């Protein structure tokens, strides 16, 4: 267990008052503190967006990378050192826009990382443009007459692509979110946690009240997360945004099938006196 104060950096967050990022930040720290892991074995990658500023407010090994790219960085970290618990903090633009390819491929590979997406249906840090999850017709600075595309459905995409852990949380429901993050980190494989959150400044439609009206907790419904067809129905439900673990199954994580990962983590290999004579022979 990590003492909660050990995760503090002493820096004060700069998010707007009322931002959903606060709820997710608190839930991440709570979940980490409650998990049975060593502080130094956590590695967090962050994308770029308001959410990415969390890198300054969680004391843990981390890399705040480029917009859209926190997933491949996390995969590289995990492949180098399987002992680490690797978490990705990303935004909806990061994950479903700039980095959608990495999202789908990460799910395909079932890399053992936990992806926590800040999904507020708007680009906040760039002062309010439509995001990949904005509803069709969303009026924003970049779409003054209403957005033309339909939104990405990350839950349905993740299930369809073979996701082994697909969940949705809500920034104003920290108790559920803490549970989801803990379950996601414990799950061996690629854990998708799409977290609905409000943007207090640039999204006047999808407010906390709006989310409360449109979300329903799966805990109050008898749902078997191992039933893929039912999970897909929930993902496509036009009337409710279901929160909780929507789908989960067990399959090998990527690193479990990598030939070089059968022994100790590759970071512990001895690099001195490597014998290449067998490999030289094949050129003779």
């Amino acid at each position, binding site marked *: 267990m990590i003492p909660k104060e050990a995760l503090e*950096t002493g*820096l004060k967050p700069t998010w707007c008052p009322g931002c959903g990022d606060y709820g997710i930040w608190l839930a991440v720290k709570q979940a980490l503190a409650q998990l049975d892991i060593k*502080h*130094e*074995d956590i*590695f967090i*990658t962050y994308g*770029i967006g308001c959410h990415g*500023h969390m*890198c*300054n407010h969680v*004391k*843990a*090994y*981390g*890399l*705040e*990378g*480029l917009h*859209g*790219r926190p*997933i*491949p*960085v*996390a*995969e*590289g*970290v*995990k*492949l*180098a*050192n399987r*002992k*680490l618990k690797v978490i990705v903090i990303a935004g909806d633009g990061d994950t479903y826009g700039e980095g959608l*390819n*990495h999202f789908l*491929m990460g799910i395909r590979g079932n890399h053992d990382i936990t992806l926590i997406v800040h999904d507020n249906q708007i680009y906040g840090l760039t002062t309010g443009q439509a995001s990949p999850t904005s509803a069709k017709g969303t009026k924003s600075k970049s779409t003054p007459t209403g957005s033309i595309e339909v939104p990405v459905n990350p839950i349905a995409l993740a299930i369809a692509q073979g996701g082994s852990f697909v969940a949705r949380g809500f920034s104003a429901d920290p108790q559920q979110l803490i549970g989801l993050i803990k379950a996601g980190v414990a799950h061996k494989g690629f854990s998708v946690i799409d977290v609905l959150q409000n943007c207090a400044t640039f999204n006047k439609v999808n407010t906390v009240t709006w989310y409360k009206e449109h979300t329903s907790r799966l805990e109050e419904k008898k749902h078997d997360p191992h039933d893929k067809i039912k999970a897909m129905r929930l993902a496509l439900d036009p009337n409710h945004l279901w929160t909780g673990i929507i789908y989960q199954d067990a399959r090998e994580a990527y690193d479990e099938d*990598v*030939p*070089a*990962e059968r*022994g100790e983590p*590759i*970071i512990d*290999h001895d*690099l*001195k006196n*490597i014998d*290449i004579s*067998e*490999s*030289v022979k094949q*050129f*003779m």
Partner: protein
Amino acid sequence: MNTGLMFSKACARIGLHVFDYIEYPSLVRGGHNTYQVRAEDEEVRSQIRMVDILIALEEPTLTIHANEIKDDTLLVYDVKNVDPGKTRAANKRIRCPMPLKELVAEVGGPEIMQNTVALAGVLGMCDYPFEVFEDIIRDSFEGKQGKVVKENIAVAKKGYDYAKEHYSHHSHYRLTPIKGAPQRMVLTGNEATALGAVKAGLKFYAAYPMTPSSTILHTLAGWQERHGIVVKQAEDEISVINMTIGAATAGTRAMCGTSGGGYALMSEGLSLAGITETGIVVVEVQRGGPGTGLPTWTEQADLRFVMHAGHGEFLKIVLAPGDVGEAFRLTMDALNLAERFQTPVVIISDKYLGESHKSAEPFDTTGYKVDRGKLLRQAPPNYLRYADSPDGISPRTIPGVKDGIFLANSDEHDDMGFSNEEIVLRNRMMAKRMRKTQTYLAELPQQQVHGPEEADLTIISWGSTKGPILDAMKWLAKEGFQVNFLQITHIQPFPVEQVAEVLSKAKQTLLVENNYTGQMGGVIREATGIELKERLLKSDGRPFYPEEVYDKVRAILGGGQ
């Protein structure tokens, strides 16, 4: 192993020096493919224009290559499939038709075996020891059923005996073992890069398939169990470089490889590694551009791009090997430099170096030490990842080290890694990172000058042109010409003083580059103010032939002494 490589290995096994050059279109099957092998009892580093023995499996070969056929070239071809009389080689005399199909049919093998029959025929007419060729067949079909090996040996024997009986008297070439010759490898620049990386402790390699860099991926993928390397084919080159950065941050020696188009996608990642101070190695095996360009042909047109890609200012080290030995050595060096200077290092190569085989004795690795720089496996008290230091390099921990926590941050950051945009801090961090350039320059090795110290002409070039230039210089030296060659291997940061000194002494200069605009000439002018007026440039996708370098030098220096 294809038939051409079998011939290269056959020559190397008996002690000859070998260089081969492959041309193929961007197709999976068909098109016009050539495999040219040059073998001599002295070192060879390039292909030459005129061919001694030509195996033509199809008739058009004799027309397409008519200008490379001499009066005494031995033409080997299938008696039914090819009629030299119908080609531009109609007037050539020495014909060695072989009943390839029939010989294969006698053994009952598949049609593809005609290649082996023709090759064995050439070996037969040159008195090559057949039992050595048998070994090569066994090696090349390793892992296949005994029946396949037996069939191939049988069919080779047919071709060998047929040609020995009918054409031995035609051939003035003898492929007989050289006593006391050392055992040599036959390998490409890409394979040498892979081998050097493994020796230097590479543990992570990522790539997206892209000709002509893919054989690095294939070679390392084949070795991942033996050498304990994670080899990852990622979804795109963006992911490739980000994974590599992740793996390096976590504490492995990590490398990725691509060609020009993939390198374009890696640009933002290079910049990320610049600010997070992550040591990674990128191999860029150039092909003809722009765009998809000439996917299977060679060019050196990415020099400026490789040097300058990545937004913002940071140290990016660029190394340019000129042959397989340098590909091996500079890859080992690159992995040390990346970790020591905590910054991206790019190895710039090309199709010609990457895919041509050369014979070489097993590379000497004495004196090489894995140097991981300021890597800490235990954190000192009050550890700060980006603490200022006189040489610009800060000690780094890796995840898992207690009390060594850091944030690698693509935003400008403070000593811990936390975002910070204040003026004083920004200036200090920029100065710290850029100071690494001075630290690197202080230890920059001397660039090689090949040939005599005093010369009437100094050739300036970089990368794979080394082979044809050195081969041309050998011919020129025999005729009494005093020519030397400044080979720039350490391209960025640029060795200004070294280059300026050599050039200021040069009586005449000749810039040789496999590109349209003479990019290195521009770099030299920018750095030294010296303009290299005489130029030998080409951008037709083909490498230089030593004849072209020879002719150009003769044109400048005149009739000789």
